């Protein structure tokens, strides 16, 4: 099909013009909210943004914005007089659909591009850690998601007779594929548990403790509706993160839905408007279908176990069933037929529900577990496939409190059991087992395996940088061991396999690295100092932590001393790092910035000189005494 033949720019321009107010609002809503969201993240002092956080607002608006755009472009089919107007214009149906659909695509591209540009600006000008590759992923991911939602909404509008019905049909179309994909999970009862079957004494003891069947350690309980809802409404068709296969899959589904929308529009009986569906059978079928997700959600919310809660569920479902008529038709007609349909639907639902519940119960045996993965210190996604270690981990004490626990991911892959779940065990137990496993298998840590040239962003005390020289120094130092991490720890971020990864890297691994980082931090400190008076601390090897409030006090009242100190900082900002150093802080932007005073001897001299000048000042004496009393002695074994 020659698309240009069916694209009428003038028609699109006029169409956009007549809806410019609402279009501008919906085009700007995502970029504006995203900007506010990013500012709030900055204000909250949290600089690292993962893909899921970056996507949060876009996910929520994905349910609204594409539908509104589709309604603006195709909503005329719901009103007889607008149908008369649009279809009598010298533009045929194919052209109307293709022109408006492409118009919708342009708008969506514009919205996501604008939002991405805002993210790029934030990434380049603020301390937010957002690699450009992640923003590119965001762009692709949400262009596809929004286009997918747009195609679903358009198909729904082309099939429906009024707005309320088109909303219902949109949700039904959205639910159809996940429903087919996750049927098994969907109908699983809440009390369905997954147990790791084992036969050791430890297992027996644990099963008594957990109330699990004897000999089993419960490691997984299914929460089907939550999974289903999340997958369907929020992240469908993605699994919450960027995956190329999912993007392609969604694109294909989007093309199918768009084609169906095209057929539905060009073949649509335009007289079918201002009502739900002309055909009563279709109307009641759609209505009964919508009852299914509604009842499932209710099951989850009111946990229908006893007869009372079941009655409540039935009552609410009945209200929904009739409210549906009021919303879509603005009246309830044929009460008896409606009631009979409701009873039939409920019987059918319960029949299917209980049958599936029975067959969806999962028992997994220890032998079924292929692997357990864990994030442990410098070992991200450490995969343990050794059966012995798997048994030891599975039979460890389950710990619900995440603060004292180690989160394990269980991968089960066998003929009929394929899933991933998580459980937590006591960290003291887990750490020992995993340390043992690492040592036995001589596994290299992530820091030693990584190619540091690909590090996107380095963050240390308000210093955010991307620097090739720094990357080289990191690479050189990666295999050096350091017992004490002292000084500063760098957070290294890189975007790999569509995931933002982070690594902690002690600067103390190499003196060159420490000096270089110290210089970078000092430069940034000086750039932001302006007229502020820094807070001074000593914090160093062989020394003790003490603040220097007396110095701050003097600097506040004595401009000459202040000038002298600032001159000192300027002169010494490129000093090489030494074992003993002081810190100076300023409060800059949203957090502290740090200056490392490496020439402590020179600073001590200056400090003493200033103190001598004010030795008779009562306040200075008071500060010195207080600081001495509160100082904490800390020993370090710190060597390059």
């Amino acid at each position, binding site marked *: 099909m020659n698309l240009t033949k069916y694209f009428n720019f003038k028609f699109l321009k*006029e169409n956009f013009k*007549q809806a410019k107010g609402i279009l501008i609002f919906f085009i700007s809503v995502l970029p504006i909210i995203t900007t506010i969201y990013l500012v709030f993240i900055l204000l909250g002092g949290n600089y690292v943004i993962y893909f899921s956080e970056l996507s949060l607002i876009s996910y929520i608006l994905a349910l609204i914005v594409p539908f509104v755009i589709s309604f603006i472009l195709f909503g005329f089919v719901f009103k007889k007089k607008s149908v008369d107007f649009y*279809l*009598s*214009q010298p533009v045929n149906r194919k052209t109307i659909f293709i022109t408006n659909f492409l118009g919708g695509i342009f708008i969506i591209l514009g919205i996501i591009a604008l939002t991405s540009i805002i993210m790029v600006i934030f990434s380049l000008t603020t301390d937010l850690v957002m690699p450009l590759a992640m923003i590119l992923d965001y762009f692709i991911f949400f262009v596809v998601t929004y286009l997918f939602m747009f195609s679903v909404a358009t198909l729904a509008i082309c099939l429906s007779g009024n707005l309320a019905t088109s909303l219902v049909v949109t949700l039904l179309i959205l639910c159809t594929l996940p429903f087919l994909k996750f049927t098994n999970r969907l109908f699983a009862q809440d009390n369905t548990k997954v147990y790791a079957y084992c036969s050791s004494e430890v297992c027996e003891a644990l099963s008594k403790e957990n109330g699990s069947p004897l000999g089993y350690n419960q490691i997984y309980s299914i929460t089907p509706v939550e999974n289903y809802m999340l997958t369907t409404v929020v992240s469908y068709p993605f699994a919450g993160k960027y995956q190329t296969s999912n993007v392609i899959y969604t694109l294909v589904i989007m093309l199918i839905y768009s084609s169906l929308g095209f057929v539905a529009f060009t073949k649509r009986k335009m007289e079918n408007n201002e009502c739900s569906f002309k055909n009563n059978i279709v109307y009641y079928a759609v209505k009964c279908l919508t009852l299914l997700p509604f009842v499932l959600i209710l099951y989850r919310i009111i946990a229908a176990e006893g007869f009372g809660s079941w009655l409540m569920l039935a009552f609410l479902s009945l209200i929904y069933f009739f409210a549906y008529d009021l919303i879509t038709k603005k009246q309830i007609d044929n009460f008896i037929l409606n009631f009979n349909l409701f009873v039939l639907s409920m019987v059918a639902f319960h029949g299917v529900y209980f049958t599936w519940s029975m067959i969806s119960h999962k028992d997994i045996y220890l032998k079924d577990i292929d692997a357990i993965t864990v994030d442990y210190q410098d070992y991200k996604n450490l995969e343990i496939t050794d059966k012995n270690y798997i048994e030891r981990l599975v039979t460890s004490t389950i710990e619900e409190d995440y603060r004292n626990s180690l989160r394990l991911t269980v991968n089960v892959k066998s003929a009929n059991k394929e899933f991933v779940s998580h459980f937590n065990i006591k960290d003291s137990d887990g750490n020992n087992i995993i340390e043992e496993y690492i040592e036995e298998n001589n596994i290299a840590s992530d820091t030693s395996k990584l190619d540091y040239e690909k590090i996107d962003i380095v963050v240390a005390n308000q210093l955010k940088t991307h620097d090739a020289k720094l990357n080289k120094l990191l690479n050189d130092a990666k295999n050096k061991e350091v017992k004490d991490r002292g000084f500063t720890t760098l957070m290294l971020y890189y975007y790999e396999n569509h995931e933002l990864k982070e690594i902690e890297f002690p600067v103390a691994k190499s003196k060159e690295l420490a000096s270089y980082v110290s210089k970078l931090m000092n430069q940034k400190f000086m750039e932001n100092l302006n007229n502020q008076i820094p807070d001074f601390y000593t914090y160093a090897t062989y020394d003790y932590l003490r603040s220097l409030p007396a110095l701050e006090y003097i600097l506040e009242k004595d401009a000459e001393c202040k000038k002298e100190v600032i001159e000192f900082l300027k002169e010494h900002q490129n000093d090489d790092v030494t074992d003993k150093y002081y810190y100076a802080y300023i409060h800059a932007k949203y957090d502290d910035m740090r200056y490392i005073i490496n020439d402590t001897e020179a600073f001590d001299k200056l400090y003493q000189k200033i103190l001598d000048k004010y030795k008779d000042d009562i306040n200075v004496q008071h500060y010195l005494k207080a600081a001495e009393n509160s100082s904490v002695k800390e020993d370090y074994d710190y060597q390059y």
Partner: protein
Amino acid sequence: MIELKKLRKSFTKQKDVLQELTCKIPDNAIYGLVGANGVGKSTLLRIINSIYQADSGEVLIDGENAYENETLKKEMVFVPDDLFFFSSYSLHQMAKFYEALYPKFDMSLVEEEAKTLNLDIKQNITSFSKGMKRQCALLCAIATNAKYLFFDETFDGLDPVIRKHFKNLLVKQMTKQDTTIIMTSHNLRELEDICDNLGILYKGKILFEGEVDSLKTNMFKVQISLKEDFNEKTFKGLKVLSYKKVGKVATLIIEDGEKAKSKLAKLKPVILDYLPLTLEEMFIYQMEALGYEFNEIL
């Protein structure tokens, strides 16, 4: 020429709105389509304009199938009964919309006529009265300079002066170029002074159609009285549509025109008066001759 061939359309299984409707509408004419409410006049116009699709049959315009024919649609404009304007649009903005889509659109006509009709071209149309809105729609449609104009309940809401103005404007448009206008109404009187042809839509079909001029010249009402006693058979050989005799005077509706007049004169009547017939009366007698009660049709 517009040719409708066996058009069928139903909205429910029980009833066909149009039942194999067949009709020919000549070029450069104003065709009035008359029928009671709900008889299918608007549906027919919507089918001709590709808004609805006929269940069967076809619409041919200048020999081409009109359904979804973009080239033909550039020469067609439809003003429905229930008017639509973009919210917060003025007449000028609406005219701009039409101008973008109709290649022969005449913006100056809109501007001049708006001035004549006292319509503020920059004012939001939604603030206009029903009649003013109709004026806006008619102006935009006429300004398209399309070859085929379709008006549903054309003059609904217009006062007699404005109605007259638009009738003149349409006639002017017809003389300017070969325009064919099809307009519907449930009121025959509204169309009689403007239409060249009239068709009556009844039960999904064109029940009767004809040229207004020939109807007017061929059909007349006569009151007659003869010296001798007479009855309906006396007028055998004439096409009498209606015969009523009260006392010695009979009232006849005759369709044969001048021929009939000479035949009547040969009967040497005592009284012979020719009375004018309104279009409505002509239709009443035609319908009665066909066996229909006019009141149930209109």
